């Protein structure tokens, strides 16, 4: 199943080089966030092991949901 991944890149290597290697390793729909050193993309579950082996990759984590958290929504007037 195709999933979205958040790749934390090391600053030791140019981020575009890392992104290229990730693409070769099967990462698709790549988005490079230059200022924060993060690469976002999607791939099958099985491909993650290959992504983690790319030189300059510090971490590969699933894109997970975030929200405004309870009980914020209680509004009073």
């Amino acid at each position, binding site marked *: 199943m195709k999933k*979205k991944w*958040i790749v*934390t*890149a090391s600053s030791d290597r140019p981020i575009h080089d890392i992104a290229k290697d990730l693409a070769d390793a099967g990462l698709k729909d790549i*988005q490079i*966030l*230059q*200022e*924060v*050193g*993060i690469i*976002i993309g999607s791939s099958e579950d099985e491909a993650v092991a290959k992504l983690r082996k790319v030189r300059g990759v*510090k*971490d590969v*984590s699933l*894109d*997970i*949901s*975030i*929200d*405004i*958290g*309870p*009980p*914020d*929504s*209680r*509004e*009073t*007037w």
Partner: protein
Amino acid sequence: MINEANQKLTRKGNCMSKMGEEEKGEVRVSATIEELLLGALARGEEILKTGRYIMTFRENSVDQGIKSLDAKGFNIKDARDFKNQAVTLQDVGNAEALVFPEIRSALVSSPVVQEFGISIQGKMMAEGPVEVIEPEYFVFADNSDYMRGFVSAANAIAKDLEAGKGAIYEMEKVDAQKVDAQVLGATWGLVQCKVPQSSRSGSGIKVAVLDTGFDIEHPDFVGRSITTETFVDQPVQDLHGHGTHTVGTACGPKEPTRDTPRYGIAYECQIFVGKVLDNSGNGTTASVLAGINWAIANGCEVINMSLSGQEAVQAAYTAAGSSALDKSCLIIAAAGNAGSDTGAPANSPTIMSVASLDQTLTPSYFSNCGKIEIAAPGREVLSSMPRPRLNGSMSGTSMAAPHVSGCAALWAQSKPTLRGKNLWNILKSYTLSLTPPPCCIGKGLVQAPT
């Protein structure tokens, strides 16, 4: 409201002598709290100032300070004149200065300050026994209730005036003044963070709020610099309310357009709205990171993130926080509302985590704890809401975080070196210490710079 009549209150009858002094602009050292409050109301200026001043002497300079005051012919009373130095203000009579030697300061009236020939901006004096002179401010035991009571009193007076029942009040026409916001004061949160008396506005500072977007046409934000971007598949326009509320706290106006207390802190900052949560309040790590990236690329000094997920530290958030700090940007995030461990992204060591406090300055029941840097007001916080509501109260660590972000903008404005980690450190240095432990409130309650 008093503003509608554009009228100024003055007292008559058996208060004639006091009225004379008030007309001259002098507020007596021996004035009662009620007289001070009514006087402040009549002046229509910043309602939080009493009209008196606190003079602080340099170390070992109290006697020299007293001599200075005496030399200028002022009537001085000293706390040492009273048994056990227990001073009753009503007993100081016509004194124009009341000295508290144990804390090397004096309560003085405005003629004293004028005589010293210095502007009352709280600036340090170059030499002489006086170190600084600052306005005296009202303090309230329970800000929301007292302010509501005071506002009710003000409204009652206004109603009496309109009904022609002004038995003890006589009206004088004055030039149209915008007294709305001043009369109504500010939200309890702003008061506790010492925002109203701050000389800072956030001018020149860019504050990014990554949230559900913003109501760009909100009347309280007309004329403001607002840059927007969406990172979800929806336009920036906030249809949820959360984003408009947090933007309001961090960046709202000094004088809201209706009968609303001041609810915003950095009223002259440049606002950057990044919609990273959709109109249902949901987003993902990816949208948040994209928002952070954008904010840094646009040179924002402060990023507010009132969002969280109950998971362990995320490497990506830590890396983003680190990059931000390296690029003169401070990310401030809500600790989360699960009543459990601090969530992500606030739990990253490179991101400042904010806990929520109630009006009693105790941790809110829902506030996460553990890795907490600082605390701020988060209960029943009034701020902006999308039209047509315009205003509303919300509770959560989401409301606490923008108090810190707004104050961070004020601090950043005060000194160009206060960026990134320096800004983090100054915010933590100048907190108001409270009793609860650091795991609940970090270093304490955030405070605005003077």
